[in-house]
């Protein structure tokens, strides 16, 4: 499956986006290698903007579903543009401090009129499992995106929201911590500190 086919299949409502994405990135030949590369970029970008490791992100089992969700709602082209921008920022700031990289990410990605709202939505996807409807002015300018409504990607996406891990809690209704565990202080996981950022 090459990227055009992948995209076309994603637009067919009957197909399950996550399994399609999985099939695409596990595909053989050039097309498979290519899509795998894009997915890798997607995860690298996600690591950067969530401060969770690739292991943690894959540990949610939601990577393919989010990848497919973004493509489904706003299209392949815009995601590639976002990821290319990200990669060029990384290449440009190789070896420099997080502070410098974050500045560039803000100026060129989060502050980009077209890409910023998508970048923020990817962050929110990872933390909540929800795709949030894009701001109206975005749709007016860059739309239309018929699938752009607020929705929860899946029950598991909700359960795997990184928000809960971040605060040492658990999603309401799942991953309970055990009778009486609530009497203890929360165990908030440590994460890579970027002391340079003030």
């Amino acid at each position, binding site marked *: 499956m090459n990227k055009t086919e992948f995209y076309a299949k994603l637009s067919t409502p009957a197909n399950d986006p996550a399994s399609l994405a999985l099939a695409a990135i596990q595909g053989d030949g050039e097309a498979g290698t290519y899509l795998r590369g894009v997915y890798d970029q997607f995860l690298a970008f996600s690591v950067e903007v969530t401060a969770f490791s690739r*292991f943690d992100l894959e540990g949610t089992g939601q990577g393919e579903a989010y990848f497919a969700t973004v493509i489904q709602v706003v299209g392949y082209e815009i995601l590639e543009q976002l990821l290319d921008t990200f990669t060029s920022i990384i290449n440009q700031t190789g070896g420099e401090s997080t502070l410098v990289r974050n500045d560039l990410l803000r100026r060129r990605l989060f502050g980009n009129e077209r890409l910023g709202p998508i970048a923020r939505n990817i962050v929110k996807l990872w933390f909540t499992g929800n795709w949030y409807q894009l701001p109206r002015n975005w749709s007016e300018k860059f739309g239309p995106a018929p699938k752009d409504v607020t929705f929860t990607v899946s029950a598991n996406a909700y359960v795997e929201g990184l928000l809960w891990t971040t605060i040492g809690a658990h999603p309401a209704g799942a*991953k309970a911590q055990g009778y009486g565990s609530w009497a203890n202080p929360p165990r908030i996981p440590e994460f890579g500190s970027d002391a340079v950022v003030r």
Partner: protein
Amino acid sequence: MDSHDIATLESLEEHLFSAMVLEHATLPAYLTALYSIKPGTNQDASNILRVVAVEEMLHMTIAANLLNAIGGTVNLTQTGFVPSYPTYLPDSIDDFQIHIEAFTPSALETFLKIERPVYLGTVQQRVVKRRIPNHVWCLSPNKDGTTQYTTIGEFYNAIKESFIRLEAEAQAKGSTIFTGDPAFQITSEYYYSGGGKLFPVTNLDSAVQAIDLVIEQGEGYVDEDKPTGVFDQYGEIAHFYRFEQLRLGRYYVRGDKPGFPTGPAIEIDWDAVYLTVVDPKLADYPEGSELYQAALNFNIAYAQFLALLTEAYNGKRELMMRAAVPAMFDFRNLMNRLIRNPAPQQHGRHAAATFEIDATNAILGTAKA
């Protein structure tokens, strides 16, 4: 007295410790199979695996209570407490091995073998003579280890009889074998796991009751005279039959004959499973990778958990609720995270926890002598 009876208190203590090893040894297999199921799918299989795993944990705690009741020592940090997988079960020499693997048809067959029912036969049928490979730690009624029990149920029956006989001998001399500190008994107040009440073992009656609970929940009895083989008198269904439902694709309901369930259908989606590396080792993961580190961290956490349990079983009961239970809920998350990560260079297989506890202790230099 037959040569394969458990003749001394010391031997009974050894047997009870082996029971803990045994109950625990199934956990890595059941839990890996359970968490390999993709979330939201295979609900029936998940429920069954979860209940069985949870009850194995309960059985291990019951074994600890039995051991503590006769003044034995519980130490789960001892080298060899967690076997190296694949492993034979003490009753399964020449027969089958337990693997740490995903939920697959062959894993299910193994589970059925682990839990195969007790055939209520004569004492002679209880044991078989076999040669035991050197590396296998095995349950044996005699010191030279040449005979083994045919099933786990037989093994527990032997323990039960030993309790009865040793206590009768002690009573005849005006003493008792129940000399343990009652404050070491873990009761429901300290640990709840579903599927059974934990009561203190302080005398023969409670000891026998505890052993019967383990046998009934585990393998169940097959008794021609008792048509209620599938369910016990409390309407509980033994592990063997729980798993058999998955093989037969249907739930048992009360009144069903073994092998002929008539309840609601069960469907299994064997594809909705993360296929994991079979019997994974840390060495299967690229050294220095996040995956390697996470697998190592899991083993460290698990080793600490066994140390914590040891403390809890040795008088600090409150640690059960305060620390051990939350840790168990934590392992679910840690194992899930590993299982959802593809393992590089493993032919598309996913990672899983390795449970190399002795090796981890060695790496950490904390291995107990």
